[in-house]
């Protein structure tokens, strides 16, 4: 059982490993110019320099702070709107069409407008990230509540539950898997958008490091940025995944059947 699990995990590492070797060979024998694709060894060295100088940490901290703020604002307001639309018909009738209309606009399409209104400072970035995080969270919360099986609701109608007990016993647990998916989508959206925002508007942050590096033709720094972004995003998603397993054990085991 344990060995099988390990095997499954290791299988996922095969292709990255092959890519790594291919990359190493390509750059080592200069099949691709090293200015465009520096060898892995150089990247490690670059990473080490950035790491030990504190440059990487400082910029990561900025980016993560923005993600944190944007995610917090966006996901919590998304949760509130999704819940309100899911639970109250009038709210749904007033707001759902508007929400559906605006969510058709890709968040990046708001950039010019937001820049005009908010300039290129922190406010722009945080509002931008919030908008992105807001949408999947709203959708998934709303979905989760709307899809509470009618059969379960009938069971509690027979038991004459008040609204609070109904919420606690049936609606919240039933919607929680969907809400968790919303959180994960929302966080990964926030992480993508922070980089986007930093690429557009100057300031500290991992995206900005990459913009400057591109101007100086430091491909190695750009690639270190890409890899750090990937690893951070992956780690954040795993973290939420672990929380999900912790709180929604019943869901996973049930679905595994």
């Amino acid at each position, binding site marked *: 059982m344990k060995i099988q699990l390990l095997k499954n995990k290791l299988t996922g590492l095969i292709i990255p490993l092959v890519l790594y070797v291919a990359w190493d060979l390509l750059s080592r024998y200069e099949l691709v110019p090293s200015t465009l694709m520096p060898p892995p060894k150089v990247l490690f060295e670059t990473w080490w320099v950035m790491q030990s100088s504190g440059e990487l940490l400082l910029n990561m901290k900025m980016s993560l702070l923005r993600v944190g703020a944007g995610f917090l604002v966006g996901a919590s307001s998304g949760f509130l709107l999704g819940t309100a639309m899911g639970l109250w018909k009038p709210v749904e009738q007033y707001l759902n069409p508007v929400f559906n209309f605006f969510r058709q606009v890709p968040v990046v399409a708001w950039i010019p407008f937001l820049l005009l209104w908010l300039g290129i400072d922190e406010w722009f970035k945080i509002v931008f990230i919030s908008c992105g995080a807001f949408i999947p969270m709203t959708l998934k919360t709303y979905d989760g509540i709307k899809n509470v099986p009618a*059969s*379960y609701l*009938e*069971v*509690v*109608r*027979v*038991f*004459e539950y008040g609204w609070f007990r109904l919420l606690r*016993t*049936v609606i919240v*647990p*039933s919607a*929680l898997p969907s809400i968790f998916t919303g959180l994960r989508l929302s966080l990964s959206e926030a992480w993508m958008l922070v980089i986007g925002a930093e690429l557009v508007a100057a300031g500290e942050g991992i995206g900005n490091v990459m913009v400057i590096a591109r101007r100086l033709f430091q491909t190695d720094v750009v690639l270190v940025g890409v890899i750090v972004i990937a690893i951070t995003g992956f780690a954040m998603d795993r973290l939420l995944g672990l929380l999900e397993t912790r709180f929604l054990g*019943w*869901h996973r*085991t*049930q679905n595994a*059947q």
Partner: protein
Amino acid sequence: MERLGTLEVKNLSKKFRSRNDELTVLNDINLTVQPGEFISIIGSSGCGKTTFLRLVVGLEKGYEGEILLDGQRLNGPSLKRGVVFQDHRLLPWLSIEKNVGMGLKDAKSDESRKAIQEHLELVGLKGFEKHYPHQLSGGMSQRAAIARALVNRPGILLLDEPLGALDALTRMYMHQELERIWKQEKITMIMITHDVDEAIVLSDKIVVMSSRPGTIKKIIPVPLARPRDRASYDFVKIKEEVLEEFQLHTEHPFTYTI
């Protein structure tokens, strides 16, 4: 505590309306169920058995006629009428113990804990308190659902093909269990079934329904002593009587269930 109630159904009809269509599902149903009786409703698929049950539970609105409990018109679902749905409908995120406690006001009080324990014992699920529904077999889930429906001591228990999904052996075992629970709890039970044997083993009266629209074709009393012997002459006679209603005249009544 007075738990039992007389259920009277008078001239009950139910129509489902879709946009341009009207479907009469039940037509002029008349039935009186005495406190403590065990009634089976038997009839082919789609004849309106579930609809009837849902009306009595109070989950379905908009009907003609009257459904009276001790002379009072029904007004929505109530703790006084327990129900076991065809699919057990245990909440997958609650342990069996918590599922069974769903019908209690304060599931944490000592009194409630005791009631939960008693009912788990009643359905033979002692030791499975902390399990989750997906860890139980179909029969165990149905038994948990029965415990859940009984725990707040309703006067009437309505069961919608509770054993339909079980294999023959488990089903026979469950017949004994249901009979024992019924006797012990002194409760009125109304059970929908497809299985003629099951109906005869358990019921005081068998309500045979015909379809389109659903009406009561015949009410057949089962005046046999309990526990009932499926091979006895009287049992087989009653079985023939029931099967006759479905035009299944046969010399080998043993081989048929509906």
